[in-house]
């Protein structure tokens, strides 16, 4: 990191300009349009109308909001998302740990086994899961089952995104730290808590940021696996936009954007250099 950058880099630096333009036009401007739609009426005048409609549709104040459809949907999404993230983590960490520490020569093949189902189109994969639920008799059995099935679907879909970053951080841990811990008298459990766990934090954090928001918004999964009975934020936004209620939809998107910034802020910020990211950049 301390390498000095060459002074003669005019040609390379200029390469950032087209990409910066690309990002500005297709990432920043669209988000500004969302903000614009959330706070303007059809004739382009500034308004808080859609904020009011969202929080206080019937004029019942806070009580009205807490029993409103929108609020319930958001709470339901948060619940599904929390559960999916936790279950993913509880499965992915041991899997990544076992593969990274196993003595087999072909670790990469074993890892590949967990990643490669992603080659099956995700709608097909979820469809497969649905047919399985129908076969097992848990499909649309009750409201509780619908939620459980949705969570299983989210876990099924996003598990690789949790396994990969955790695996990449664990495999990088210098084994001599663990030996040192052992020499200094730590039990294996203590060595794990004091050495491995802190050193793999980056992977966990990156995995969480890859699972949390998608499992709040991926309405293909929830629609398929709950007979359209479980509504999550993603579906809410989709309904507003397909119903041509762009302003309301934009305001809810804004709330999701807020969640995104919150998650990013909690998980270590935007400009972190050593991201062990991503939806599998190390996949290939």
């Amino acid at each position, binding site marked *: 990191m301390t390498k000095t950058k*060459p002074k003669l880099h005019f040609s390379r630096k200029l390469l950032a300009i087209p990409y910066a333009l690309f990002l500005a036009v297709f990432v920043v401007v669209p988000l500004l349009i969302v903000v614009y739609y959330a706070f303007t009426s059809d004739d382009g005048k500034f308004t808080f109308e859609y904020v009011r409609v969202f929080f206080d549709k019937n004029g019942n104040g806070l009580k009205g909001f807490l029993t409103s459809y929108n609020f319930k949907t958001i709470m339901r999404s948060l619940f599904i998302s929390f559960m999916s993230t936790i279950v993913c983590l509880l499965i992915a960490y041991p899997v990544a740990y076992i593969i990274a520490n196993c003595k087999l020569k072909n670790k990469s093949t074993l890892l590949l086994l967990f990643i*490669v189902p992603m080659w099956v189109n995700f709608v097909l994969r979820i469809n497969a899961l649905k047919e399985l639920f129908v076969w097992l008799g848990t499909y649309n059995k009750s409201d509780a089952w619908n939620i459980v099935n949705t969570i299983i679907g989210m876990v099924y879909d996003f598990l690789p995104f949790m396994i990969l970053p955790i695996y990449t951080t664990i495999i990088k841990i210098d084994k001599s730290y663990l030996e040192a811990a052992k020499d200094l008298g730590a039990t294996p459990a203590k060595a794990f808590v004091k050495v491995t766990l802190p050193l793999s934090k980056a992977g966990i954090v990156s995995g969480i940021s890859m699972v949390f*928001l998608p499992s709040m918004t991926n309405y293909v999964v929830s629609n398929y696996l709950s007979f359209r009975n479980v509504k999550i934020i993603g579906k809410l936004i989709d309904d507003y936009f397909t119903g041509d209620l762009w302003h309301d939809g934009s305001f809810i998107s804004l709330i999701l954007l807020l969640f995104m910034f919150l998650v990013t802020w909690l998980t270590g910020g935007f400009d972190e250099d050593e991201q062990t990211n991503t939806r599998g*950049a190390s996949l290939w």
Partner: protein
Amino acid sequence: MVKCKCILKWAFIGLILAFIYFPILFLTVNSFNESDHIQNWTGFGFDHYAYFFSFENEPIRVVLQTLLLAVIVAFLSTVFGTFGAIGIFYSKKRTSSMLTAVNRIPVINADVVTAISFALLVSFLNIDKSTYIPLVLGQTLLCAPFVVLSIIPKLRQMDNNLYEAALDLGATPKKALFSVIIPQILPGIVSGFLLSITLSLDDYVIAAYTKPDSFTTISTHIYGLDKNNILGAKIKAAYWAFTAIIFFIIVLVVIVSNVVTYKKARSKKR
């Protein structure tokens, strides 16, 4: 004691693998079912494969056009992403960290929000969806940031002196870029390209909001199927055959990768 722990470990791995593969296997088995409905097995047959591979029917055409779209999108994303990554990496610290931050937005952001905000832009600029421009650009916007993320680590690993040496030896910056930097970061470029293909193939939301009405991808096609009508059920069953084919490819790849690592290990021993 140690042995018992070991068994427990592999039992856990096996259980999770079973969870991952069982649904796919379930469809694979049913792709040989003569009936169009999974719940009743009427006999072994290749009907769904015949239906899938016949060009008169929709599924194979949809699969091919989805693949074509994925290749185009992946190509564009790779070009944008590669030059973007190089540009970002060699910019001044402040520009670089700002661009990295914006680059991360589509990566972390919920797909729905990316999709609808882009769709709003499309309607704002009044671009006709039937030109395919919104679809291709929308998916490129989804994939290019991932290409950037897979290339930057390679740039970091690269020895900076190589580029300077090339310049000292009289190469123009352009020449140095193409014959020194690009070959050095090629693994990152390739993995970015492959990742883009997977992302584009898997995308549902962006395609749903930006595609021309006459065009479908695998995702939007399956999602829109009504399996209660006879044709819908038939098409759906044809996609089981497609799933099975992918499954067989997966098995093949895993075996080959296993053999390759095994051979490598053996030749190293010698």
